[in-house]
């Protein structure tokens, strides 16, 4: 919280700065967000509902998005927990390489990721003939959508978990093991309760990205209406067909979902902050009480993650 000091700017400068910041956020974020809903409901809620519910292709797109996103998020959750456990609890060769690799999908264009999948699973791809003889379809079908979505959301869960698990340290888990807990018991009774908010944070972010992914999915889906169109692809298709009001209706659902995500994110972040404070208080307790209590030796903190949203 800003305290009045000698470096505090004068009120006029402060007001100008606030106005400029509000102007930037307003023009870039608030106006576009408001206009999605304004355009979607321009012809009234009945027209909005008709555009969503009475178009079988749109209905299918909603259903497909609701199937693909949870699958991708589930893969990411399992991968995120396993990788965060490895990185925060073990030292092994290739550990820092693994951390770097986790971030790779962030710097790869989603379109390039989609293309790589086409080169593997497409008809002329590496596995194309094998898949064709088995009668399996990956590209232009839902497995391709899941793979593409998983790729672009891969860093989101693991990034949230690593710093939190490193901050908590292994003491409680070591205690559980020494008392005879099995691996599964350690995970469900000690680790999971400790990381639940961080995990939820990652899942919420991954889900938002998964529901909204466009580039990677666009390349692998073949955008067949009523078959492989997800909601964002449906938005584009309707826009190309000059059906902007219908396109805006689908967009407004996605925008509403984004707002719900942000509210959830806000609530979860408050919980995370509270838990971090609790952890800090617990850490400083032995010192202040006895003066002889040794702080838990978790080894040097190995924070390798930059603070990126």
């Amino acid at each position, binding site marked *: 919280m800003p305290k009045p000091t*000698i470096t505090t700017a004068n009120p006029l400068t402060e007001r100008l700065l606030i106005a400029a910041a509000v102007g930037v*956020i307003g023009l*870039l974020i608030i106006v576009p967000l408001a206009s999605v809903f304004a355009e979607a409901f321009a012809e009234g809620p009945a027209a909005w509902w008709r555009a969503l519910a009475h178009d079988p292709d749109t209905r299918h797109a909603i259903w497909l998005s609701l199937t693909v996103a949870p699958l991708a998020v589930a893969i990411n959750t399992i991968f995120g927990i*396993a990788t965060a456990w490895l990185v925060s609890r073990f030292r092994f060769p290739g550990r820092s390489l693994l951390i770097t690799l986790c971030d790779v999908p962030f710097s*790869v264009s989603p379109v390039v990721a989609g293309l790589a999948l086409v080169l593997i699973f497409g008809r002329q791809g590496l596995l194309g003939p094998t898949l064709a003889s088995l009668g399996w379809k990956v590209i232009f079908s839902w497995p391709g959508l899941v793979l593409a979505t998983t790729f672009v959301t891969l860093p989101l869960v693991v990034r949230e978990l690593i710093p939190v698990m490193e901050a908590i340290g292994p003491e409680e888990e070591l205690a559980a093991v020494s008392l005879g807990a099995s691996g599964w018991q350690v995970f469900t009774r000690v680790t999971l309760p400790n990381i639940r908010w961080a995990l939820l944070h990652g899942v919420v972010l991954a889900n938002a990205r998964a529901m*909204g992914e466009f580039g990677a999915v666009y390349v692998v889906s073949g955008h067949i209406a009523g078959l492989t169109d997800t909601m964002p*692809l449906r938005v584009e298709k309707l826009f190309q067909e000059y059906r902007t009001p219908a396109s805006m209706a689908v967009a407004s659902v996605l925008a509403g979902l984004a707002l719900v995500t942000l509210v959830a994110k806000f609530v979860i972040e408050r919980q995370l902050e509270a838990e971090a404070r609790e952890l800090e208080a617990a850490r400083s307790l032995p010192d202040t009480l006895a003066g002889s209590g040794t702080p838990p030796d978790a080894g040097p903190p190995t924070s390798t993650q930059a*603070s*990126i949203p």
Partner: protein
Amino acid sequence: MSAEISTTRAMRRRSVLPGFGISIAITTLVMTAMVIIPLSVLALRAASLGPTEFLAAAWTPRARAAYAVSLGASVVAAAVSSVCGLLVAWVLVRIDFPGRRLLDSLVDVPLALPTAVAGLVYSTLYVERGWLGRFLVPLGIQGAYSWLGIVLVLVFVSLPFAIRVVQPVLESLDRDSEEAARMLGANRVQTFLKVIFPAIFPAVLTGFALALARALGEYGSVVFISGNMPFKTEIAPVLIVSRLEEFAYAEATAIAVVLLAMSISLLVVVNALQQRVARNAQ
């Protein structure tokens, strides 16, 4: 390889915590299947073209124009994001005002809003009859179906990165040196340029790099607003998709590899720059 495995086993034995085996199995499986194999296949496919064929595919006039549009618009957008991001981060950290928390939450909208929605909305806002276009188009400012439109959506998608990287650094900044500078007679501008800016510059640069990486790869929002005119407003990812739709896989792959090399080498350059800045600061 086998030596690596045996040391891995030795390390594992030293830790009493369970779950190493299953975790490394899951991680290796997903990482190999999702990241390593796809990117290797991409690189191998490009390598199998041979140098002349690769150049013929990746260095056509249309492709060169697309790289230029991609790089130019992304650099401008990342720079605008960095400047606006510094301003917003400063206001959020240093000034207390009603609505500060709301503004702080709104910063994350571009991370949660699907890029297709952003592209759709921006293109309808800046056309002649749109909310903003009706004021801007008469002034000759074409925000939709133009190069400017590409920059606008790229600023939208990259802004949170620029803000969220600078914000924690500003928060942890030591106020004492600032106050010392002011006591010694430096004015506000001098204090900012000589004391504050050097301290936050690495963070601003990191934000710029992340914004740039995000902007270079962006597809969903740009495809709505750019008009996708070859040589004018066609970005590299759009060209990749249109080559793919013509089943020109070799050409698509070659362009993809150039785009990939561009974003990775840019990140490497800026990382090195940033380490140098950090060294100088010490």
